[in-house]
């Protein structure tokens, strides 16, 4: 359990959390990136286009 950096609400996290994983804040709906896992640190996930190289 940690706090959404956008709205401050509690975010429930599952057990096998991995760095880089994207979780949704069920309160404000924003996408959060797992920056660290122990203890969990969340940050707003960057917006990224789907665009691939050669």
């Amino acid at each position, binding site marked *: 359990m940690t706090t959404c950096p956008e709205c401050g609400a509690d975010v429930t996290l599952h057990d096998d959390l991995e760095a*880089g994983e*994207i979780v949704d804040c069920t309160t404000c709906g924003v996408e959060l990136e797992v920056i660290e896992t122990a203890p969990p640190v969340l940050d707003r996930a960057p917006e*990224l286009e*789907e665009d691939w*190289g*050669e």
Partner: protein
Amino acid sequence: MTADETPTTADEATPVVIKIGGASAVDPAGALADVAHLSANGRPVAVVHGGSTAVDETLEALGEEPTYVETPGGVVGRFTDETAMEAFTMAMAGTVNTDLVESLQNEGVDAVGLSGLDGKLLAGKRKSAVRVLEDGKKKIKRGDHSGTIESVNADLLKTLLAGGYVPVVGGPILGAESDGDYTAVNADADRAAAAVAGALGADLVVLTDVAGVYADPEDASTLIESATTEAAFEAIEDAAAGFMTKKVMAAKEALESGASSIVVADANANDPVLTALDGAGTTIT
């Protein structure tokens, strides 16, 4: 102008940009002979090349495996980590570009090989992070070396063309980091060709391993010969399936950025470039 000189028509003076694929199914010999023909006739010509097959071969020779990732949208793409980027640079700027320049010199064409880094020829923001789907989980994966072209140094190309040279352009491109530093990154070769053709106001010939865009890819009689209206282009967008989608997207970018025309044509045809400029394949204007 004296009476002896052949007047140069606007059409003759329009540069031609030829996109040569990197797929091993396509032999560039016919295209290179056409480059020699056009160039000998005074037409400014630039070549843009891919080389994904050579990158894969180089990775394999180095004992590395390409990394593929799936986007949340279900598109499978290559992830270019640092090792893959090194192989990309070796293969594209080293092997493929040098081999093409060597082949063109053997055709009597005074080719000059360039990567996107040279004179900031092809530059754009580096994209390091991508969204992927891994084991059913959405993730941010960092360390990708890719970028989208935002600027073309047309002056460098025009200087070389004016000197009688044929620029041969391939990856990597110059990727700007958020801190302002530059890193060599991967970019889509069809879009690189589109950017070059746009910057030069050129006729772009995209050579591929099929005869053009088909209304029904299963039916060879449904080749779309040309699209000169918005509606016709939309029909092509609908028809383009699979890897053709990228070529049609690139065609759109080329036209929007100033290219004169785009032809998608068969690299394995006789005189593939000359016939494409003469109406073979799918012409979009």
